[in-house]
């Protein structure tokens, strides 16, 4: 079996992003993380690689900060990371991202499977796996909750809201996994130390042979505004819970809810 590839995204941790008074976002305190959904993809790749005795590599495209992701990624069972750190990633839409990843995958070699998370924790566009499959000319199996490989055949159980289905693919494919597929490992000290010795290959955007049009986003951000809930926020916090409950019930009665 050929080696496996996982694509991951290095994103701002949304829990550290603050909404300021004018509804703009303050990201100055926000650290980066591997997108949560992609941790499941990395884990799925690492587990399959261990089971079948093949290598599992990863690919990431981000801004200059993406270099900081290598140690965390490599401590999660990956053998190697290819990374592209370029300011173009800041404005990239799914069209540009898929073009960059597809060009890099063609350069990185032949893979049995290419694994992605179902969406990213920041933009959650859920497009990358499907777009990659088209650009690479191979099938896409999206929203997968169970994955196995037997005799070179990949069997995936997809979950699609109201139903599940089993999809079997021969030959290479792009897979997007749901968070429920596994529980990502928490790297121990040994894995973290070991990560420092593993290889990482930097590629420049210019080396991927992409035309200017391939790198020009089709979707442009016009504005980003913090979402503010307009709620009553009547909070009862007396020591006497019977009293609090009585006040809450009175409020619900007023709303016509009891």
């Amino acid at each position, binding site marked *: 079996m050929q080696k496996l590839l996982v694509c991951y995204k290095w994103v701002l941790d949304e829990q550290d992003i603050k909404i300021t008074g004018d509804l703009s976002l303050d990201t100055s305190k926000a650290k980066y993380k591997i997108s949560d959904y992609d941790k499941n993809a990395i884990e799925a790749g690492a587990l399959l690689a261990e089971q079948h005795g093949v290598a599992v590599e990863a690919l990431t495209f981000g801004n200059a900060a993406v270099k900081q992701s290598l140690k965390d990624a490599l401590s999660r069972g990956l053998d190697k990371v290819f990374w592209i750190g370029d300011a173009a990633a800041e404005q990239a839409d799914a069209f540009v991202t898929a073009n960059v990843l597809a060009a890099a995958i063609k350069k990185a070699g032949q893979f049995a499977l290419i694994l992605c998370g179902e969406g990213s924790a920041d933009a959650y566009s859920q497009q990358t796996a499907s777009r990659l499959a088209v650009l690479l000319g191979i099938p896409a199996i999206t929203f997968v909750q169970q994955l196995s490989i037997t005799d070179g055949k990949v069997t995936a159980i997809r979950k699609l809201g109201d139903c599940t289905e089993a999809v079997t693919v021969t030959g290479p494919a792009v897979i997007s996994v749901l968070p429920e597929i596994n529980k990502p490992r928490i790297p121990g000290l040994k894995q973290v130390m070991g990560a420092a010795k593993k290889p990482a290959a930097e590629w420049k955007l210019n080396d991927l042979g992409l035309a200017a049009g391939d790198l020009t986003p089709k979707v442009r951000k016009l*504005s980003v505004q913090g979402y503010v809930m307009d709620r009553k926020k009547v909070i009862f916090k007396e020591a006497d819970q019977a009293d609090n409950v009585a006040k809450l019930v009175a409020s619900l009665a007023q709303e016509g809810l009891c």
Partner: protein
Amino acid sequence: MPGIWIYSEDSAVARQLLTAGLELKTSMNQAVGVLTPNSEDAQSFVAAGADKVYVVRGSNPWPESYAGAVADILGREEAAVVLAGGTLRGKDLAAKVAAAMQAGLVTDAATITYANGNIETSRLIYGGLAVCTEAVALPAFVTIPPRTFAEAPAQGNGAGEVVTVEAANEDERISVTNVCPIVRQGTDIAGASRVVCVGRGLNKQEDLSLAAALAAAVGAEIGCTRGISEDYHWLPNDRYIGISGQKVKPELYIGMGISGQVQHVVGVRDAKVIVAIDTNEKSLLFEAADYGIVGDLYEVVPLLTKALQK
């Protein structure tokens, strides 16, 4: 025909998108068409105002396999705007077709307008923390979640034409089997009028009985946060509410022992009244609540259950 094209494998969703498509028809002064794999519904789209309907008929019933045929038709028609139903199957197909046509695609748009020669959309990002307004160059692809718009009503005198196109959608690399509906325990919480939701403030699985008693008292379904279903497996995955789980629109939502992370709160934003119960006064759910009680859910919930039973 350049213009606005609609696709969904779910005909009810396609009729909802027709409502958005007919608005764009007015602002863009272009015709609106529908692509459907469901021949039996073609006339309903014409009746609801579609100027042209393509029935795409292939021998492979897997909806995802229609991407190539849909891209061919849209390319030939020189589509300006494509609205696709935001089911998971629809998102998969839309991304494939957009890639084939080298087009931009906005996922899960809440609003869509035509402005300055582009399609402008708004959508949630960062797990629901912020709203992002974007401009998509034509041809512009947009997926719209089911139930964002009401279905376009039948107008009675539809004059649109229906054309059937054969699609070569067999792919010997892929076989699909065991297509089975998920058996849900209880009714679907997405449509529930009242929801009682539990989070990690609950100490053990047995204590779900507290939530069950409150739910019974107010006539609610039980939902949970992602941790309760995916990490603890105390409730099925289709019970968890949040950005990647269920979105609920009840008249009453009561959350207990919930920290109120934005990924969860985004799933309850459309609730009419939100009630939060948590020991931690700093729980973010209080920020998103209409009413709240700061207190131990083990003390508050039984009291509330008793009061509401009366």
